[in-house]
């Protein structure tokens, strides 16, 4: 997949201005999966749940997303609507898995880090198992194609950068202000932040802590599923075992990096994917440099960013990772 893209980058070609344009126009659609997943994870963490299983939910989403148009079309042309059915199925199952995770970490109060690893293995394993059974080998699908916005996409430079993408790109970037609004301007958002910072206080004024946490987990799960489906339907247009490639974990890291704030998270996701697009563009230039070192760059970047970012929970959910128990004193 990655090299199809770099060939594309290569054929569009050139250096200088074009090179920069390539990186930017590659980086923006690339950031979508990360952006949606980390916004979902932000809701989880704001509610006090550290969901490390994001990777697994994304894998399930990616598989289910492509399964719908694939099994209906069987290689033939399918109306675009089935692609969107795939997106809906992926987010629905994502939400269910989020609730299942809630059963383990909210109801039973299991430690979230290790349970998240379990969810990740379960999701990645299930996606791989079902994929082998229902699809078999690598099968590409038509997927969701680019939908230029009439008029706006004709603007030179800006048009190709911002208004010439598949519809999910626009949806993802609309999600950022939407998430901000939901989190900071609605009663539900206030409840989410309350159960993530001071669950005991929230409980004392009648907020059902665990219920709100379940709601946040369902939302986060749905968004992770959607992010996964984006990868298979819009970006790679196929499914493979390595399709998520750690994006679920990177999404979790981005939430820390973005201090649980939608706009900062968007910044992080863009910074991150621009680095990745740069990496692919350099590969496309055909400079003789071991590509393995380029591929590891994004992961290295995550570690560096985590090491340098502030760790204080003051602005964020202070009850992150702590199960709530009404019967306990602390």
């Amino acid at each position, binding site marked *: 997949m990655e090299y199809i893209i770099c060939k594309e980058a290569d054929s569009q070609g050139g250096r200088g201005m074009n090179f920069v344009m390539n990186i930017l126009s590659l980086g923006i659609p690339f950031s979508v999966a990360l952006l949606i997943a980390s916004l979902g994870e932000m809701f989880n963490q704001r509610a006090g749940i550290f969901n490390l299983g994001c990777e697994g939910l994304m894998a399930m989403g990616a598989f289910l997303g492509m399964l719908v148009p694939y099994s209906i079309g069987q290689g033939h042309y399918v109306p675009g609507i089935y692609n969107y059915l795939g997106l809906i199925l992926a987010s629905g199952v994502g939400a269910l898995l989020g609730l299942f995770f809630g059963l383990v970490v909210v109801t039973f109060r299991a430690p979230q*880090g*290790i349970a998240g690893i379990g969810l990740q293995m379960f999701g*990645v394993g299930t996606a*791989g198992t079902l994929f082998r059974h229902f699809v078999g080998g690598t099968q590409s699908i038509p997927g969701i194609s680019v939908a230029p916005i009439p008029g706006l996409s004709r603007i030179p430079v800006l048009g190709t950068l911002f208004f010439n993408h598949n519809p999910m790109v626009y949806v993802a970037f609309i999600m950022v202000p939407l998430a901000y609004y939901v989190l900071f301007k609605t009663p539900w958002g206030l409840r989410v932040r309350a159960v993530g910072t001071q669950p005991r206080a929230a409980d004392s004024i009648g907020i059902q802590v665990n219920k709100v946490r379940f709601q946040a987990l369902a939302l986060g799960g749905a968004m992770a599923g959607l992010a996964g489906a984006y990868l298979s339907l819009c970006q790679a247009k196929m499914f493979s075992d390595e399709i998520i490639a750690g994006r679920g974990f*990177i999404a979790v890291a981005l939430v820390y990096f973005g201090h649980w704030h939608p706009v900062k998270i968007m910044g992080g996701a863009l910074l991150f994917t621009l680095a990745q697009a740069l990496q692919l563009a350099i590969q496309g230039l055909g400079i003789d440099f071991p590509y*393995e*070192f380029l591929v590891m760059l994004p992961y290295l970047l*995550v570690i560096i960013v985590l090491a340098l970012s502030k760790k204080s929970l003051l602005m964020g959910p202070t009850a992150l990772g702590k199960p709530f128990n009404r019967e306990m004193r602390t």
Partner: protein
Amino acid sequence: MTKSFKTRYRIVIIILAVLTAMLLGAIILLALGADVIKTYLVILTEPLKNKIGVTEVLLRMVPLTIIALGITVAYRSGIINIGAEGQMAMGILTTTAVALGFPNLPSAVLIPFAILAGAVGGAAWGFIPGFLKAKLEVSELLSTVMLNYIAAQLYTFFLRGPMLDPAELVTGSGTPQSMRLTRNIDLTRFIKGTRIHTGIFIALGLALVIFLLLWKTSFGYKMRAAGASERAARYGGINVPKYLIIAMMISGAFAGIAGSVEIAGVHRRAIEGVTSGYGFSGIVVALFGGLHPAGILPAAFFFGLLIYGADMTQRLVGVPANMVQVLQGIIILVIVATKMILANPYLMQRAEAKWNTLFAKKQTHKEVEA
């Protein structure tokens, strides 16, 4: 609360947990349209039907045990190591480097040297997340995962570049692998016609070492104290960050040793796919074994069975081998939830009260009948 009720309660909960895990697995199997009971039977019994099957299970037990022991040290010290996959890869690289560099050393020198090199490679890779956690508060869950991806790339780089088998250059098949390592590094295969090698004794020995280290030395006590309650440990004058880093290095070293043993005993060259998920399975083994060497050994056997059994399901019942990953994920989730249920005294009290009322009713009925 009566003691007999306590044991009965525990047994019932554990049975329920096992059933839940099997039921969750059954949902996935039903989605595949597979015969659920037959699949479980194949996974659990098919490998044990002949000598080769049993030794293959034991073969998989070796890296699982060693990695799980390392993960136990980290877990007990309060740090979750999900980077064993990468640490193992680094251990394989350093082992291979030693074997390629000193092919003429006699076995008695080369094998310990190579295993030590594997340990150093893994420990170095484990040091990074340990240091980041202790000094910069970077979540080890994220840093170890990232280091797994980085290690995987380094691994391919070395196998394609500096360590590539010269024969591959000639034939040009392009398989990224090293040359067949010197025979001096081979761990003896002690049962004819099977692949089981002396690495299994190394695994058993290391289990003893970890038991002694964690439970019979003050060093191990301090590590466990740091893991049990960081705050209390700090008040007790224990340098928690230091022990975190050391625990992570031991954990990495064990994953590295697992890599060395796997190379010296099974593959005899560095090749892609040696780690094959052992790093993650090791976490399940450690948890399933109750984070204790005595539990890890049977747990490693059980998961060796699952992994080898799952290889057979494709052929016999048409269930892809990835099913083992599904089961491992389910088992982790069920174990952590079950642990919390067992640790909840209120729940047990409620269950006992309920049980007593039911039981008491029965008694009165009997009295009435009499």
